């Protein structure tokens, strides 16, 4: 059986599982405990099919569904295989977790949710397989619609409905741009297959138009500035497994689309495209991480952190475009590998973190950081697994986030030699911004972890918090395993990713990586740069164990418990700890112009003094509200045309007809 057939069967199985959920919507045990694990198995299989087809020849298929004479063209190549691997393996963990998560959650229509969830998975798979604009757009819109329905699962709250509407709106504006981009790339030939687009030789002007439209369209889906506004609204609104799926996997389909258009379909590269993507990416990354540090809602914090990661991916894509346009293919391969690796890494650790917030939410019914705390005592599994996600997300060795950051910085570092001296100057400054972003990500995630899981419990109700259930644990452990494997065995994974890099750029890193052994990551040569996570981890673990053993043998291991010292302060209630707002106060102060802050300071006469601070997005006020006002004004003008009398409408039609006849005179 061909791999592509297996993947189509997987999509059909997902649809069947979803429909089965619809058949027994009230049977919690059946839907949650049977159908979701089955979905996870299908995901696992799809992931391994993706892994297996990496490096093989491209496979194509035609599906005769849809409009007559317009079949769905499908193609499985190495680029698609990388993202199928991501989709399959990550969604397997999320589905397993969801099986445990939704079996507690009463009050939602689980059958409908099961259908939407699996349609969402199947549509993402079809997005990756699509080989013509028609199939791509159908799958893309199904993906947007099913995820919209998932976001608004809890549609009784107005805030969630608003978030869903905003998401749908931005998704459609983006989809229009993507459609236009495809239209430009057909070059007027009327052939909407991707093969037809590859065969077109566009002029630089039209190619640039197509690229910019794609950047905007896919950027809207991925959350690039300034079309990021839906992301921090929609992610917290959705149930946690859905947030994980959207952040971990769906955002990556947009990155996939950008790579597909930029390196495969357009067929040419202009150097300034790279500069544009680099600039947008840097702005997005800085913006995302700064806003992540000041959030007080745990899921919003993670959503902004996803914006940051998407920004870093755009930086990598920009760098790749820049190198590719100057035929510096070795460096292009290095930065493209960083992009692909970071897609996998982010999918793993961000899903892990989102699912951990799901467990916290179930255990405490609370998502505001200021009301949590001390959960490591009540939820040790979730807490320790979240720690792995935090270390990876902060870009620290030896977990997955560090590897992609390392590769990206290496690509920056060995870039001098670009033909423009000012480009050579921009690149290190961009690297500095990337370094700052990575360091700030550490700040945001320490805040996330420290305030939720460490310290004293800020609310008495937290005493009853319980750990994740068995299925949830399995899902979390699986994702943690992916994060660890990516972090510790980067060379093995880069060898696999190499097929995709080679397909897009004609050059990869494989020879170098195999030359220096599986345990050593040395993308250029061991003399220039090397990183051996296995040795790294082994040294720290060995020192840890040896140190512990030596201390215990030479001295003793006695421990006494007593109240905290705290410099002798007597009152140490949970309110003495930092709040989420307090923790981010330095950031708000240093980067004050970046935030739109409304603060309320109590006066000295207040009987019940309250201090509040609200941080909002400048873009909302500077960009979106003016657009909304403009739309309102225009529609108010148009209302005047509607007098409500038939005679007027007939006259409008008549005038229009006359005008058209004048214009369209042969």
């Amino acid at each position, binding site marked *: 059986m061909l791999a592509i057939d297996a993947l189509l069967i997987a999509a059909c199985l997902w649809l069947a599982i979803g429909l089965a959920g619809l058949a027994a919507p009230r049977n919690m045990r059946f839907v949650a405990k049977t159908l979701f694990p089955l979905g996870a198995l299908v995901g696992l299989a799809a992931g391994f099919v993706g892994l297996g087809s990496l490096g093989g020849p491209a496979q194509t298929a035609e599906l005769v569904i849809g409009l007559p004479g317009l079949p769905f063209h499908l193609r499985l190549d190495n680029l698609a295989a990388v993202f199928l691997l991501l989709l399959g393996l990550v969604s397997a963990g999320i589905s397993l977790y969801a099986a445990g998560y939704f079996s507690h959650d009463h009050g939602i229509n689980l059958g409908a949710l099961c259908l939407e969830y699996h349609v969402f998975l199947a549509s993402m798979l079809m997005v990756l397989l699509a080989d013509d604009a028609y199939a791509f757009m159908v799958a893309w819109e199904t993906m947007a619609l099913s995820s919209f329905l998932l976001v608004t699962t809890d549609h009784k709250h107005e805030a969630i409905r608003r978030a869903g509407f905003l998401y749908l709106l931005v998704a459609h504006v983006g989809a229009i741009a993507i459609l236009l981009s495809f239209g430009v790339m057909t070059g007027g030939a009327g052939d909407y297959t991707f093969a037809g687009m590859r065969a077109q030789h566009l002029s630089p002007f039209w190619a640039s138009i197509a690229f910019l439209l794609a950047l905007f369209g896919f950027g809207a889906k991925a959350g690039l500035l300034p079309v990021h506004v839906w992301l921090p609204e929609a992610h917290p609104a959705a149930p946690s497994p859905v947030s994980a799926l959207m952040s971990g996997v769906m955002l990556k389909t947009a990155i996939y689309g950008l790579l597909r258009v930029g390196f495969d379909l357009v067929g040419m590269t202009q150097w300034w495209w790279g500069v544009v993507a680099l600039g947008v990416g840097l702005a997005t990354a800085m913006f995302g991480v700064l806003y992540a540090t000041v959030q007080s809602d745990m899921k919003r914090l993670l959503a902004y952190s996803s914006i940051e990661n998407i920004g870093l991916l755009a930086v990598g894509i920009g760098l790749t475009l820049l190198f590719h346009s100057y035929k510096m293919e070795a460096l292009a391969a290095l930065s493209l590998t960083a992009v692909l690796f970071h897609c996998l890494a982010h999918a793993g650790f961000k899903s892990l973190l989102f699912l951990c917030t799901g467990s916290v939410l179930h255990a405490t019914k609370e998502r505001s950081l200021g009301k949590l705390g001390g959960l*490591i005592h009540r939820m*040790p599994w979730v807490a320790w697994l979240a720690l792995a996600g*935090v*270390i990876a997300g902060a870009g*620290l060795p030896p977990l997955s986030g560090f590897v992609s950051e*390392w590769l990206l910085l*290496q690509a920056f*570092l060995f870039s*001098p030699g670009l033909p423009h*001296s000012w480009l*050579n*100057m921009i690149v290190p*400054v961009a*690297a*500095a911004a990337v370094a700052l972003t990575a*360091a700030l990500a*550490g*700040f945001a995630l*320490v805040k996330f*972890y*420290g305030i939720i899981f*460490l*310290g004293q419990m800020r609310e008495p109700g937290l005493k009853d918090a319980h750990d994740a259930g068995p299925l949830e644990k399995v899902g979390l452990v699986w994702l943690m395993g992916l994060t660890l494997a990516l972090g510790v065995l980067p060379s093995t994974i880069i060898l696999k990713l190499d097929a995709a890099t080679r397909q897009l750029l004609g050059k990869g890193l494989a020879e170098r990586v195999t030359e*220096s*052994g599986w345990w*050593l990551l*040395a993308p250029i040569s*061991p*003399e*220039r*740069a*090397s*990183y051996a996570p296995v*040795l*790294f981890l082994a*040294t*720290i*673990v060995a*020192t*840890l164990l040896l*140190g512990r053993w030596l*201390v215990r043998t*030479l*001295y003793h291991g006695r*421990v*006494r*418990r*007593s109240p*905290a*010292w*705290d*410099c002798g*302060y007597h009152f140490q209630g949970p309110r*003495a*700890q*930092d709040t989420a707002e*307090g*923790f981010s106060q*330095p*950031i708000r102060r240093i980067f004050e112009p970046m935030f739109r802050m409304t603060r309320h300071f109590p006066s000295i006469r207040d009987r019940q003094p309250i201090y509040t601070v609200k941080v909002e997005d400048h873009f909302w006020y500077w960009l979106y509200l003016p657009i909304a006002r403009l739309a309102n004004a225009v529609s108010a003008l148009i209302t005047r045309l509607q007098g409500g009398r038939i005679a007027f409408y007939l006259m409008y039609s008549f005038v229009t007809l006359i005008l058209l006849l004048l214009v369209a005179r042969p």
Partner: protein
Amino acid sequence: MMSLSWTGVFGQLFAIVLALALAPLLTGWVNQCRAWLQNRKAPPLLQPYRMLHKLFHKDVVLAHGASALFRFAPFIIFGCMVLACAIIPSLSTDLPFAPAADALALVGVFGLARIFIALAGMDVGTSFGTLGGRREMLIGFLAEPALLMVIFTMAMIAQSTSVTTIVETLAHRELVIYPSIAFAGLAFTMVSFAENARVPVDNPATHLELTMIHEAMILEYSGRHLALLEWAASLKLYAYSCLGLALFFPWGIAERDNLLAMIAALPVLILKLTIGGAVVALIETINAKMRIFRAPEFLGTAFLLAVLGLLVRLLLESRV
């Protein structure tokens, strides 16, 4: 690069043991110099060892709210610092552990230790612990990019991010002061003062609650945990000193398979550390501690200097 020689293995183990032994001595020496400069009676040079010995003997007093993370963190931080000392060439560049982490990963090692100490500070849930954790992360996110930029400059000169290759390249260069290295050296000095809780940014001797950073996080530690953290702090100072010496004064560090040079390297290293420690004490004495919100300006300056160094390297020295 990967060839394991006996001298290499021996040199590696010796470097680790030497770091463990010399690090408290360096801290003691800096304290002694500082006392002299401030007209105080100096504590004995071996005071840090006595303190470590005393602390190891004591019972651990754990706060009621402390979790397992609190007990693990000192060991992890200590492990990170040992790894850092193992990959920074202090005596010789023949280090089998060197490929484990290049200069960028070295920054990652320090970052890992920082995250654990900040989380440990937040673990008990006291007012000072969380405050210290927040301030440590503030200093961290300001210092880390500056340190990376310094490393970028050096890596561009050596065409490599491997610390040993950088040192080997720089040691073979003729004695000319490059402006880029001067900028980088200045930035590196500022970053190391901030990272090691030294005076313009933090005061290691203070117990004034409003000003402390490092102390605030380890207030709740006692016994062997505190000993390990103190030892790790001195190892960090030692690692930063050795890194600075290796990057900016690389002479006298032995290269691979040269036993004679290795033997000669020890007195050179001790001499360099002695001078370096005295300079640290001097700078600490003639400076006043800044307010915490001056730290961003201080580290921002370091960052700008580092970026300036990099640009100078790219624009003016690219043909050198």
